[in-house]
């Protein structure tokens, strides 16, 4: 590729103004210059929980709801609900999950997505419930990294001021 021209008169005139917006000339090791500009980007999504809605509405009532395959021969119970059975394809019905379970696996996140960085460190756990065929991923509170182990008995707590998010439920060590 041919060398880029080096005549940025106008840019230099308004450089300080541009730099306030985060724009800049980047010069690499070979002296190749590139113009860098910044453009913020945000959007308010309109998101429907659709067929998963009863789960999130249930959290506001302090209820943990899973789904059970309606086909008697199958009857698979999902801790994370789905309106059709993944095993046999039949429709499912809503069932109450136990409020108590055990840690199937866990981690403590010391970093996270930008949106959650301010909440670090936080614990994640996959919960297994007796008689339920799949797991539920939740936040685990009121405990620290050194307390946690696979098999630990835990129980659900619910947000009294619901945000209609999966974070309306969390688990704590059973006492």
């Amino acid at each position, binding site marked *: 590729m041919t060398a880029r021209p080096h005549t940025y008169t106008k840019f230099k005139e308004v450089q300080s103004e541009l730099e306030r917006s985060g724009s800049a000339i980047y010069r690499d090791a070979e002296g190749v210059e590139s113009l860098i500009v910044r453009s913020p980007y945000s959007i308010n999504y309109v998101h429907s929980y659709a067929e998963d809605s009863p789960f999130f509405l249930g959290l506001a009532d302090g209820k943990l709801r899973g789904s059970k395959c309606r086909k008697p021969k199958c009857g698979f119970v999902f801790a994370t609900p789905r309106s059709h059975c*993944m095993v046999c394809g039949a429709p499912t019905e809503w069932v109450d999950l136990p409020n108590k379970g055990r840690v199937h696996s866990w981690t403590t996140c010391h970093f996270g997505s930008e949106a959650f960085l301010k909440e670090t460190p936080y614990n994640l756990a996959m919960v297994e419930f007796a008689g339920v065929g799949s797991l539920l991923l939740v936040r685990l509170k009121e405990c620290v990294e050194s307390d946690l182990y696979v098999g630990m008995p835990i129980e659900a707590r619910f947000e009294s001021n619901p945000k209609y998010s999966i974070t309306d439920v969390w688990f704590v060590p059973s006492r």
Partner: protein
Amino acid sequence: MARREGSTVPARANTKSKSSPKRATRVRTPSPKGRRVYMVTGGVTKFAKAHPAMDFRLMVKRAYDYALKGIPNLTADRIDGTRISYFSDHFARQLKAASMVQDYLGMNPKGSVRIEWGGATGGECFQAAYEAVASGRMDVCLGAGFETMSRVPTWKGNEFIALASDTNFDFPLGGFYTGYYALMVVRHIYEYLRLRKFQDVTDEREAQRLAVEEGCRIMSLVSVKNHRNALHNPYAQYPKRLTVEDVLNSEMISYPLTREQICTMSDGAACVILCDEARAKEFTDKPILVTGVGTGTDTMRLADRPFGHVPLLPHEKAKDYEDLRYPGVHSFRAGRAAGIEAYRMAGITHPNEQLDFIELHDAYASSEIQTYEDLGLCKYGEGYEFVERGDPFLKGIDYGFDVPRAGAIPVNPSGGLIACGHPVGATGLMQAVFAFWQLQGTIAKHFGDPTLQLKNARRGAIHSHAGTGSAVTVSILERGFR
């Protein structure tokens, strides 16, 4: 092209969990009736944290020009069409970016399609190009991929990646892929180290703490291996001479995974050119034959993974895994399915004997170990021993510790994702290019350093993997010349 319906992998009777789905994991038997497909060339840009002086079009162009260099008969007019891969429209902030690659390369009005399948995007692009040629639709197909991840800060980038997890149930909890992989390895360590190596320790917390310590020490060996291999790969983003202590003492990202056990975000591009037999022989005297392709999937949510039975490879027996509830959250069923399909097509019955090396998707040191087991390099549960014995290490490289069986089956001789970087849409194609040079015996020419060239490498596998193993591809490449 017609495909015959295949047999399925037999599953054992359901003896354990009452709540497990009572069905076998079916894996289709491929019936390769298509044309023989060869890789004739490839190119890669150096992967870097950022390439501010190149946008994605120019990166792909650089990789493409490199691929064409030295093959006088292979000019743009000989290419029938393209398959172009990138993972995230969020990172690109340019929808339909593949169209801009297509026109930058002067490929209009030839056919193309954008390929996206999470972290396995590059591997899927390779197989899409394979299918274009195998089916007879094209004689020569360019597969090109890229990612520009530097346009957003690292933790915003993590957010974009985590949007490739369920946004109802998973993302709002913290939206963090390292966290998801940490959940998987904590369980893997529990299954295979806590229950097997520390079964005599009675205090449960203490037993698990010891098991995690042991698991992390062994994962660190993998990180040291890949970073040190990369010292001889000029394309790698993070070649480093690390010690086990360096890896263990690096910043904790999500327990128990530390920074040096995790790949980084990158800017980069890679491309491959695949063609039929007649053109392959015209273009090069060192063509590489694609003898197997396989792909598999699993649930998007980790929480939905079943507790069933292991789909067996030919060298395994059902009784090997009588007590194992599979895949749970400890193993990648998609990787196993992809391996079964690719091996069967390539006629591989004993992968660790019949493969000379593997370029494997080590987004995490933990997932490299889990993948050894999925691909049958060792049995489920033997991944940690496999590392300690030294099987996946290279001969002739000083890792700073003993590797008794170094060279048994080198894994990630290039340095893998951990050391090369992971510009998602390019990564699986990068593996194809490194494997191609390895099989051609041209590593010294392309790397300017002969150290990583395996002696007499005749057959290798490449393995590309999407979020928590929700999709995996395996492709087998073999020397197509004497």
